[in-house]
């Protein structure tokens, strides 16, 4: 029994040290899943002229995702509207900004062209650089993998908490999986690299 206590103490010490030393380690004191309460908990009304948040759903899964996004006080946006914003001339002017909430490996493998990377688990890497374009934009579209992935929502809340108006933040629930499955433009590597991922035959 004493031996087990010694093993547990040594293993715990090793485990905390490994987490501290690992570049992918977690910050123990950080709340990675904050409650939805914040400066503006209620989802703001969306001006139809500006955008068309998802209202007609093809299936219940989309409806569930939208409900989940709204439950966090955020505005969902569907693929058609996301695509429209991507082709909007304001995108080239920086008035529409896309934020990719996946980790750097997934971002490097492929992302929506021009999207800013923001891994909310390691925000110190990109948040400072992303804030100014997000603050200057009229609309900010945040996405992650899609489906069960909630990182886009929590990234949207992170942007809200760091000063970006929630009125202009939209969460694309279909995410990267839906975007890439729809054969829409993709970019590989760094932001604005212009390199398209190699398509598998």
């Amino acid at each position, binding site marked *: *029994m*004493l*031996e*087990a*206590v*010694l*093993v*547990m103490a*040594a*293993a*715990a010490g*090793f*485990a*905390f040290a*490994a*987490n501290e030393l*690992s570049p*992918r*380690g*977690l*910050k*123990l*004191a*950080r*709340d*990675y*899943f904050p409650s939805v309460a914040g400066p503006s908990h209620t989802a703001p009304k969306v001006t139809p002229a500006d955008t068309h948040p998802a209202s007609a759903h093809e299936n219940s899964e989309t409806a569930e995702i939208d409900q989940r996004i709204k439950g966090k006080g955020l505005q969902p946006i569907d693929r058609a509207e996301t695509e429209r914003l991507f082709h909007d001339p304001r995108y080239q002017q920086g008035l529409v900004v896309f934020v990719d909430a996946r*980790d750097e490996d997934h971002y490097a493998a492929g992302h929506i062209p021009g999207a800013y990377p923001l891994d909310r*688990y390691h925000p110190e890497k990109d948040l400072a650089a992303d804030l100014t374009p997000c603050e200057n934009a009229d609309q900010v579209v945040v996405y992650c993998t899609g489906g069960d992935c909630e990182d886009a929502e929590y990234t949207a809340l992170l942007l809200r908490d760091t000063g970006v108006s929630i009125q202009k933040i939209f969460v694309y629930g279909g995410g990267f999986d839906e975007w890439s499955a729809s054969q829409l433009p993709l970019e590989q590597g760094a932001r604005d690299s212009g390199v398209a991922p190699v398509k598998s035959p």
Partner: protein
Amino acid sequence: MSHLSGKAIDFPTVAGRWFLGALFVYTGLEKGLDPVAFLKLVRQYELVQSPFLLNSIAATLPWFEVFCGALLLAGIAVRGTALTLAGILIPFTAAVWHRALVLQGARAIPFCAVKFDCGCGTGEEFICRKLLENAGLILLALWLLGGRGRLLALRYSLSKGREP
């Protein structure tokens, strides 16, 4: 001669110790090298409300397993390590079972048809198979508690010094 035959008889238990150790090192590394993915999986169990506790479990449990697995592979403090691993496996198997019951209720499917990633480091698995696997691992850990598997152990017991 009797010493040699004793060692021969002991070999299956040593193989079991190596298997359990290698498995914990492998699954621990799978989770420890992607702590964010493990954090999301642990969160689904709703075991704790405190972010600090949730983060601590997700951040340290994988490396805890790696450490214990390495001890078993090397044959250091074998019984203490086996007891520690049994102490991890039993409550987490209960948690996996409970989570499967919740999913079964939500999906309205037979219990054994429930398939999910339990955060065990082996990806998505059918629950009945997972429970059987865990039961086997618990039995193996308890088997090692019985003082077997001394062959090729660096320091079988911390208190009794180096074993022959």
